[in-house]
């Protein structure tokens, strides 16, 4: 027991150092950072204007259950989800370190590569959003009129859980993609295809409820019903929809279970990919 505890402290110390270095790096590009964070909200501005114009030309009061104000709240909430679930450079970084051989040191060291990456991501995100929370909070405050009343405790709890799960889901999906670098030389096209599908089906562009208007060939089944079973919507759409109360009761529980299941599946896939990938890598002399 004490040996485990002893190994925990150097790990913590290393993690803290990672945190501090991340912070210094972040602050070093100060001009970039302040400007960059504020600018992330700009595409939402355009989308909001677009939907306003859409509503202006139609007699409907809501589209797929979203009023004009709901849509603004929706986009802002997807920003929050994506703050948790987006993993810039994760897949590409893994693939690159396989390609240029720098992955070797992780095969030799008594450090679990996946856990290391996860810890590094947590550190990086904590640091980033500790500072980015200022512009985020400012924007949310200015736009507070667009939000419906704060939901009840159970919904908030579900929201928080869905955010945590979306972080893990995003991480394991991209990590597994990166691991494909053990088998394929040019993973970038696969990553790109993933990004494309994600872009459309994650709810990044529009609330996925709108897909309910599109039928599939099957009776009574819309595209939205199918998309619910895929992991993509949990990286942007789902937590936002939970907060806004678009998914309730049994549906909510079911979706949370699907999300958790996907996290488990991808975590397992990642682990298997790492295990088989490193075996293959060592077999080829690295």
């Amino acid at each position: 027991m004490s040996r485990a505890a002893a190994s925990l402290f150097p790990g913590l110390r290393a993690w803290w150092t990672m945190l501090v270095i991340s912070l210094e790096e972040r602050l070093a590009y100060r001009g970039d950072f302040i400007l960059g964070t504020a600018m992330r909200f700009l595409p939402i501005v355009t989308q909001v204007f677009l939907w306003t114009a859409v509503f202006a030309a139609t007699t409907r009061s809501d589209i797929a259950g979203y009023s004009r104000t709901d849509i603004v709240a929706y986009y802002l909430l997807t920003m929050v989800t994506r703050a948790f679930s987006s993993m810039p450079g994760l897949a590409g970084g893994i693939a690159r370190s396989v390609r240029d051989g720098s992955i070797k040191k992780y095969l030799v060291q008594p450090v679990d590569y996946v856990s290391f990456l996860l810890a590094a991501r947590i550190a990086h995100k904590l640091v980033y959003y500790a500072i980015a929370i200022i512009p985020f909070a400012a924007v949310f405050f200015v736009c507070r009129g667009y939000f419906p009343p704060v939901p009840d405790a159970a919904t908030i709890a579900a929201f928080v859980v869905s955010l945590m799960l979306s972080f893990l889901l995003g991480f394991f999906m991209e990590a597994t993609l990166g691991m494909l670098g053990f088998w394929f030389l040019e993973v970038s096209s696969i990553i790109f295809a993933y990004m494309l599908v994600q872009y459309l089906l994650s709810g990044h562009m529009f609330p996925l409820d709108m897909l309910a208007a599109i039928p599939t060939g099957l009776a009574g089944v819309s595209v939205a019903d199918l998309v619910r079973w895929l992991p993509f919507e949990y990286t942007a759409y789902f937590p936002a929809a939970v907060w806004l109360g678009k998914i309730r009761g049994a549906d909510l529980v079911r979706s949370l279970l699907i999300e958790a299941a996907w996290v488990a599946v991808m975590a397992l896939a990642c682990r298997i990919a790492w295990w088989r990938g490193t075996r293959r890598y060592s077999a080829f002399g690295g």
Partner: protein
Amino acid sequence: MGRYVSIFLTFARACLVRDMTFRANFVLECLTSMGWMSMNLAFYLLVFQFTPEIGKGTGWTREPFFAFVATGLIINSIVQALFMPSAEELTEMVRTGGLDGVLVQPLDAQFLLSMHRVDFSSFANGIVGVGLLGWALARMDHTPPAAAWLLYPLLIVCGVAILYSLVIMLAAATILLGRNQSLYDFWFYLTNFSRYPAEIYAGPWGGPLRAVCTFVIPILLVVNVPARVIAQPLEGHAWGLVALAITAAVAAIVISRLVFQTALAKYRSASS
């Protein structure tokens, strides 16, 4: 002048040869840009399930709107193909001192720095745009008059000129400030505003935004004016917009060149 054309053709030919050597990569890049584009088109089709028009009484119903999108594809693909590759390399050139080598040559630096690389795969989107335009025009109720057909290519050139000037201003900033990554993100966000018809910017916030983006940084003139000319009746204030677009294009080129020359005069050069 002829010298510049033939030098540009040499650069273009070299890039084409290189692209054809790495053919698989080239095809992949074409598919990449077309992939993003199709996602957006799917989105627009979805939007039109819920509304007949973008903005009340603006005239941007489905087919005119797609003509708008097509115009945007054409203009952006020209800029992405001809100017962005060189501009993106500029940060690297400033960092490694490659810019020094450009400054000692008896050739206009702005020309060299903005046009020495051509990305042919970016033309793919433009070609799709032309096809999309054809489809939209065929299905539209409105038939463009002869004047519109003449003005359209001219206004496309004006749109490209305005975007080019913005690229040059960003390049000037890069030269003055050295590395600045968010400057190119800035480009993405700026051009993001010009993706939709200017009419969507209405209301207490939208109005001023529209004015700024029309008269100060005229990105809203880039796609809107040619699209309007070809897809909407050519009357009234549309002519005013045409004049404005042409003036803005000329002014933009002149101003951006002045800014760029100033940046070169103040160039620091990486320390050896």
